[in-house]
């Protein structure tokens, strides 16, 4: 089988974090709502496991020249996990693939030997931040990981920006008929 001219993914390891890095089974932490406004010394946090993709810019995470202390991450769902709702249908996935559902971004399957991944969906409505040092450590302990390559990662960033900068008009120009 020939290698695609423009592969979507490559395998990486180590604590070098770049946009498009996919961290499988990464914990995210959800503080209790009654923590707000109270100087507690102890608390019970809920943690949930997520596959996440790094959204922070590479220039912000360069080792020794970090410009951020927390990394921005979005949830990634495998297609087979989406068993209900519009995205559980071929029509929904096709709309997402075409960019008609701006809250989502479809990633191609990964066929790298030993790291097969089915088609997945980045969920722009589920955004997390974790300390950069924690993400570096998580990347190291998880071993090899999949990294989205250019231009697909820029395509992802553009889709996220497009979703995030959306503006809804209270009164639109009436349609022309």
């Amino acid at each position, binding site marked *: 089988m020939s290698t695609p001219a423009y592969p979507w993914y490559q395998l990486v390891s180590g604590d070098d974090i770049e946009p498009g890095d996919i961290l499988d089974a990464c914990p995210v932490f959800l503080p209790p709502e009654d923590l707000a406004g109270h100087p507690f010394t102890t608390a019970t946090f809920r943690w*949930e*496991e997520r596959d996440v993709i790094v959204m922070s810019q590479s220039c912000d995470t360069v080792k020794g020249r*970090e410009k951020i202390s927390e990394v921005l991450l979005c949830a990634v769902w495998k297609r087979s996990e989406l068993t209900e709702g519009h995205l559980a249908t071929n029509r929904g996935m096709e709309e997402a693939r075409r960019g008609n559902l701006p809250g989502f971004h479809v990633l191609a399957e990964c066929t790298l030997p030993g790291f097969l991944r089915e088609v997945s969906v980045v969920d722009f409505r589920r955004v997390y931040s974790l300390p950069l040092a924690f993400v570096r450590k998580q990347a190291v302990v998880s071993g090899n990981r999949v990294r989205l390559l250019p231009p697909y990662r820029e395509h992802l960033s553009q889709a996220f920006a497009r979703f995030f900068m959306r503006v809804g008009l209270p009164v639109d120009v009436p349609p022309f008929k």
Partner: protein
Amino acid sequence: MKVELVDISDEMALRESDAVAGVSPAPTDEDLLDWDASIERPPARPAGIIQVKLEYAGRSKPIPVTDPASE
């Protein structure tokens, strides 16, 4: 087979005027984009709770900005 006749003369006239003006025909769907589509219930994943001890580290400070020209 039942055939329903529909008057499309107005639409054809509109398309012809678009062609004369050199513009592409407008898409038929009024709203192609669904900005509100969301996953209401995320797929179940391992989850749990942890007890944490909170240490007040003071008010955080901004990361110093270096002059790009000095790099």
